[in-house]
């Protein structure tokens, strides 16, 4: 759940703007040729508007190879999911507006108590191996995730809530939950796989618009068009897509300029600036994450709220944006980013304007009139976080706080900082694992295993208990907002921004759509005439 420029193995399950609904959502009929809604276009580059053509191939640069697993139930990295999105589908799947539309399911209903989910299987859905999708395949897939099939730990933690899966007839699937969860649909984007599938880790078989072709470690992954895709109106345009691993950020620009890459998502402003005047359309969006200087609230001096507030006042967020992204990005003030429209509170962003005087006064009150020394631990593969940390070090100097940067490998970060909570402060980006405010805010309850900053606030914990009990969406939203405000008031972390993200696409292609989650939908990309 941490992203950065190199996006290495960031754990992520989609973050959608999910309109909670108990009624049937019919989907799959969107007209994808509709243009003009692809976020704000960079003024320097306009999209090629032209007739789509069928066929052709594209080379897409991805920042890291798929290193966890091609098995969709075992993969956790954002980078993996972004590729597998084109190969697999679940009962439902997300669309570019943040809704869930039915995919392998024709329709679905959720019981009012939020404990029973009933799906009707869509007819004529085929796996890439040619077999028809049956309810048994779906049952197998869900049970596999829940660990029921093999009697092991659930492959996906949230599926521990699955009591059982029933198939009353060959068209209906009923999922019974142990405890009410009105937000469980979000998880059912999980891939449907054939029940007799072998070696998913090396030979993925799904139902998506593209099928797996081949891979070469550290080099590329190739997928090709699946001609028997069920959604005949939304078939892929391109015949072949090559995901090329370009781990070096410098090579991205040279690769795009030189012609060895046609598309790269999530480039930074420095890279896009170098593409100016070249043959590329640049799309701009947000990364949907909370970048902050995360403080270990359990350890002195950051166990003192005044010290944390002082750091907040010491930081000039606009300077950070200007320096690392030419001012692009959105300043935030709590653990919530703008794409989460429903919960996002823009007013919190201005809570701590830079004020060295106030910061020093707070430090003096806290008993540190001369400042103190601190260490910022940063995962070294995330250049933007490393850059941000460098700027923070300079800004903190002005209030007498002497910060040192310690770069660590991502794996050391995972085990020392995140796992063992042995750190003082760290700059990372945290994003949401699923669709509700819960995804970002549950983390900071006192006994959460993901509360790596050791935040502790009884009021906050109480509010979360209320959210869990509530079944009313409005009430939940209000409670989440109160929680956000507590995080800001308590200065749990020095919140900075939701970073800007840009996508470069060669002008001979078009059709790129932003999703409010970490995927690349290549079925929509086409070659222009």
């Amino acid at each position: 759940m941490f992203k950065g420029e190199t996006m290495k193995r960031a754990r992520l399950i989609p973050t959608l703007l999910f309109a909670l609904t108990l009624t049937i959502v019919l989907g799959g009929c969107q007209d994808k040729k509709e243009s003009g809604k692809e976020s704000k276009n960079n003024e320097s580059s306009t999209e090629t508007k032209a007739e789509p053509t069928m066929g052709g191939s594209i080379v897409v640069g991805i920042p890291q190879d798929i290193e966890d697993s091609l098995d969709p139930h075992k993969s956790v990295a954002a980078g993996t999911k972004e590729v597998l999105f084109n190969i697999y589908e679940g009962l439902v799947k997300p669309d570019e507006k943040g809704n869930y539309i039915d995919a392998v399911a024709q329709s679905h209903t959720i019981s009012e108590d939020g404990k029973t989910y009933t799906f009707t299987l869509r007819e004529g859905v085929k796996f890439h191996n040619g077999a028809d999708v049956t309810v048994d395949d779906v049952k197998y897939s869900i049970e596999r995730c829940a660990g029921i099939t093999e009697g092991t730990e659930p492959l996906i933690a949230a599926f521990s809530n699955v009591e059982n899966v029933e198939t009353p007839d060959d068209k209906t699937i009923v999922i019974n939950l142990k405890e009410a969860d009105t937000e469980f649909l979000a998880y059912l984007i999980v891939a449907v796989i054939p029940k007799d599938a072998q070696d998913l880790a090396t030979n993925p078989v799904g139902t998506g618009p593209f099928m797996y072709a081949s891979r070469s470690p550290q080099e590329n992954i190739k997928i090709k068009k699946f001609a028997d895709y069920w959604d005949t109106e939304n078939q892929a345009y391109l015949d072949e897509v090559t995901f090329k691993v370009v781990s070096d950020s410098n090579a991205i620009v040279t690769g795009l300029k030189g012609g060895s890459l046609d598309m790269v998502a999530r480039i930074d402003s420095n890279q896009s600036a170098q593409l100016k005047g070249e043959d590329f359309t640049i799309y701009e969006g947000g990364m949907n994450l909370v970048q902050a200087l995360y403080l270990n609230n359990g350890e002195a001096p950051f166990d003192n709220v005044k010290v944390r507030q002082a750091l907040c006042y010491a930081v000039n967020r606009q300077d950070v944006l200007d320096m690392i992204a030419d001012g692009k990005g959105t300043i935030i003030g709590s653990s919530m980013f703008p794409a989460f429209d429903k919960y996002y509170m823009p007013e919190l962003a201005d809570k701590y304007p830079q004020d060295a005087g106030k910061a020093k006064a707070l430090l003096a009150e806290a008993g540190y009139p001369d400042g103190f020394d601190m260490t910022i631990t940063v995962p070294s593969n995330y250049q933007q976080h490393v850059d941000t940390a460098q700027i923070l070090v300079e800004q903190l100097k002005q209030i007498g706080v002497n910060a040192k940067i310690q770069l660590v490998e991502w794996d050391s970060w995972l085990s020392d900082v995140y796992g063992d909570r042995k750190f003082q402060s760290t700059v990372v980006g945290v994003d949401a694992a699923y669709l509700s405010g819960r995804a970002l805010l549950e983390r900071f309850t006192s006994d959460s295993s993901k509360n790596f900053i050791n935040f502790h606030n009884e009021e906050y914990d109480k509010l979360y208990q209320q959210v869990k009990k509530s079944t009313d969406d409005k009430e939940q939203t209000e409670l989440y907002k109160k929680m956000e405000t507590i995080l800001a008031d308590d200065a749990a972390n020095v919140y900075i921004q939701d970073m800007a993200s840009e996508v470069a696409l060669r002008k001979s292609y078009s059709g790129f759509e932003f999703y409010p989650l970490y995927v690349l939908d290549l079925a929509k990309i086409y070659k222009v005439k």
Partner: protein
Amino acid sequence: MKYIVKKTGTLIITLLIVSFLSFMAFSVIPGDAAKSKLGTEATKEQVEALQHEMGLDKPVLVRYGLWLKDFVTGDMGESYSYSMPVQEMIADKIPVNLTMVLMGFFIILLFSIPLGIFTASHEGGMLDRFLMTCNQVVMSVPGFFLGILITYVFGLVLKWFTPGAYVSPSENFGGFLAYLIAPSIAIALPKSAMAVKMLRSSVITQLHMDYVRTAFSRGNRTGRVLGRHVLKNALIPVLTFWAMTIADIMANSIILEQVFTIPGMGSLLITSISNRDYPVVQGIIVLIAAMVVLINFTVDILYGKIDPRIRMDA
């Protein structure tokens, strides 16, 4: 014969030490493959289950024993990240680095032999001085900086090649070779400069030997003397240098892989280290060590053939 047996024993012991040390090293590094694979959403139980599945819960020595047992039977294990046999993955990358090493080595020979002989036979002349000055400068350029310069000048400005346009040999062998020229030059140039220097001083030493003077005084032509006597003797010390160079090129190709974004053994090694994918790391490290040891071994034997005294000394 006894010498060869002894050397082979040494080789095996060296490899054992190398593999054992790297194995121990990995048990000390924070983080393991299971945590790495599961990311930040993992529960403790999931991590433990996967650690058990991967056999990471066993003591280090037991794991080393198991690894060694498999290795001896030719099984290097399976990568945690890729679920592929390690030997297959490494075999995939060998052509890349081998090509770079061979090309680099060829370039070194191409530059150093003529230049070394030329400068030696024109010792002290203007051209010699000029060339040797250039030589000193080139020697001091770090390979990766040279790589950056080449990318900038020949890639971005002159557009002689497309940075990042690497193609795999199976796809387009010609394109593959063409792309590797630039990084090979970047690796080879500083080494060539060193080789020129070595060869030059070696040839000069030989030229001042009595037998050469005698040969000249007998009226032999320069070319003949150089080719027949001097070169043969002058090459002996240079031979070791070349052998060491191969190991160096190998190491440098790891950095140059980064500069030119070539998916070779180096990037595999670096990502495998950060993924804690130790079957792969073990495989690569042992392979590289074996290669270096073998080269040294060959040089030793060649040496022995040329100069029997070495055997006594060893």
